[in-house]
């Protein structure tokens, strides 16, 4: 270093002396011979002036460089606390050479630079929150001793959302209390006389979104089998999250629809059997219409009675309107005949009813009611749903693997779109996950608890109440 500086001084002296001689020569040629004093004054004046200009130019260079540097893409995405983070940006090292950073200590992150100008921030963020990192750069025209240029960036490290969910108990003493979970196993195959009889397993649990704010479960279900008339009845209902008594709406919907459908089916009795048998023998339009009429007077009427029961409840409740009890309702009735299984459904709202066949195909027993936006659907409590005559469906199949009813808390994470609902491979994935966790084949009441446990699966953005009922 020392040698370097002395060399530079000598060099400047020589140059300046050369300059002084040249100035003297030029002036003499013009008829003025300057003395040493004049020459020295001139030289001082010249150096000061040029030095100032030089400094200004350096400053301008720095400003230009800073403007350029501010245009360089130095964007680091946000990350997540506890999850390894790595991101590289490239800054041309022939223009801006990074000399280091500040603001990274104790963050769990470090900077790695290479000769090609790659700047990599990597490590595992220790804490959630924002960090401010300053990068230092040299720039064209920069020389030792001058300040570096700086660029500040902000990176946010998010908390893992899974760790933010709280499980707050429902406050005591609320209207219409409801257990956070419910489950039921209906054993038929072991006890009944029906060859190839089927069992029902059902479970329902409060969603994380409800647990997080200490609100009760709004879903409900009912599943039953009656030995006398051999009808299976399954219903699931999803009370609207925005309606204050929807948990009671879904409860009434399930209980009432079950009571009424059993009553009406037993009243229809032999008429029903005859109509279904005729249709099976001769699947003509006329025979189909007869079954349809009977269905209208049984399952649709039962749904209508359920909606009336909700209306009555809201009338009797001070300060309540029927909208406060908004709920969806998915109903299925099923019975084995000599020639096969008769399955009929009634469907208001979102969720899904699928009939899974032994060959892996699936029949979707209706259409979910969706809107343009997420969360828009239709409810049993809307009078207009009963002017809609396409809400009920029936089919006769030799046999099937499973009849599955679920609220949107289950169908959203597994199917997401209406189009996917039609895809048998999506149903295959759902049933595989259930079979991996629930020992359905053992046909034991324990299956209900296993199904309830399975309902706790994680799915980002899907934290609604979940209810599923399976006849298999």
């Amino acid at each position: 270093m020392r040698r370097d500086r002395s060399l530079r001084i000598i060099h400047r002296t020589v140059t300046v002396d050369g300059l002084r001689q040249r100035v003297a020569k030029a002036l003499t040629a013009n008829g003025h011979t300057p003395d040493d004093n004049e020459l020295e004054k001139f030289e001082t004046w010249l150096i000061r002036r040029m030095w100032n200009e030089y400094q200004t130019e350096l400053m301008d260079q720095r400003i230009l460089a800073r403007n350029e540097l501010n245009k360089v893409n130095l964007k680091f995405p946000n990350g997540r606390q506890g999850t390894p983070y790595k991101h590289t940006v490239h800054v041309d090292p022939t223009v801006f050479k990074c000399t280091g950073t500040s603001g990274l200590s104790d963050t769990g992150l470090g900077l790695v630079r290479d000769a090609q100008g790659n700047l990599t921030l990597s490590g595992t963020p220790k804490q959630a929150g924002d960090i401010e990192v300053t990068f230092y750069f040299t720039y064209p025209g920069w020389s030792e001793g001058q300040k570096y240029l700086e660029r500040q960036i902000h990176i946010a490290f998010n908390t893992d959302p899974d760790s933010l969910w709280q499980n707050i108990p429902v406050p005591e003493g609320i209207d219409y209390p409801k257990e956070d979970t419910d489950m039921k196993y209906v054993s038929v195959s072991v006890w009944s006389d029906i060859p190839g009889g089927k069992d029902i397993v059902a479970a329902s649990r409060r969603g994380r979104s409800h647990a997080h704010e200490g609100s009760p479960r709004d879903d409900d279900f009912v599943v039953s089998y009656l030995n006398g008339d051999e009808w299976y009845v399954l219903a699931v209902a999803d009370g609207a999250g925005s309606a204050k008594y929807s948990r009671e709406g879904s409860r009434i919907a399930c209980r009432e629809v079950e009571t009424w459908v059993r009553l009406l089916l037993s009243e229809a009795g032999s008429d029903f059997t005859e109509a279904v048998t005729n249709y099976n023998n001769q699947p003509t339009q006329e025979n189909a219409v007869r079954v349809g009429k009977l269905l209208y007077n049984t399952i649709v009427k039962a749904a209508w009675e359920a909606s009336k029961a909700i209306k009555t409840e809201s009338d009797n409740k001070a300060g309540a309107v029927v909208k406060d009890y908004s709920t969806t309702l998915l109903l299925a009735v099923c019975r084995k005949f000599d020639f096969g299984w008769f399955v009929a459904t009634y469907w208001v709202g979102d969720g899904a009813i699928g009939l899974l066949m032994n060959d892996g195909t699936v029949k979707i027993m209706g259409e979910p009611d969706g809107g343009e936006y997420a969360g828009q659907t239709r409810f049993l409590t809307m009078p207009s749903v009963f002017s809609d005559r396409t809400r009920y469906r029936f089919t006769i199949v030799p046999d099937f693997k499973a009849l599955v009813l679920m609220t949107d808390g289950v169908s959203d994470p597994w199917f997401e779109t209406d189009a996917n609902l039609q895809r048998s491979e999506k149903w295959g994935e759902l049933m595989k996950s259930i079979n991996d966790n629930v020992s359905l084949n053992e046909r034991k009441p324990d299956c209900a608890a296993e199904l309830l446990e399975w309902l706790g699966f994680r799915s980002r953005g899907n934290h609604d109440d979940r209810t599923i009922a399976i006849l298999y």
Partner: protein
Amino acid sequence: MRRLPVYILIDTSGSMRGEPIEAVKVGLEAMVASLRQDPFALENAAISIITFDKDVKTVLPLTPLEDVQLPEITTPDAGPTHTGAALRMLCERVDSEVRLSTPERKGDWMPLLFLLTDGKPSDIQEYNRQTEEVKRRKFGAVVACAAGMKARTEPLKQLTNQVYMLDTLDSNGFKQFFKWVSDSIGVGNRSVGSTDDLTLPPPPEEVNIIV
């Protein structure tokens, strides 16, 4: 993935320069920080910020909350407040960014709109036209906040019946306002199944409700 789109329109006209805009920035930062502690918001909310003075700028296009890095917000020295032009920009962005349900795709939640101004629209004709356009689009909630003594509430009432007033343009007031915005975002997420306007949480005490 269903998103909850949240549009925040901020008046950056000359009168906001200095302390008011700094207070807004502090409020925005606090809002984002608090939303990041809400698991609903963290998984679903997407935020867009549009500023308006004589120019309208989308300083933050609709971005998932997780990825949000707050942009620079600048104010000119003086000039008009083009609230109408801002609403036009808003409608364009909503049309192109907010996803509706199709058989193959799950739609977003209904978007929320928060508008903050300290004056009145200078482009009143455009403003009148655009308030109709906004109404034609289905927002889950539209909340307008008139901040400071010079803010006019009448034009805002044309846009929404949820107009609130902040007496002062200080950071405490804005913080309360944005706290309320973030509370509403939580509610918006949870309002499953409804086709109606969502029920907003009660406004903070610093905010006066205009009837």
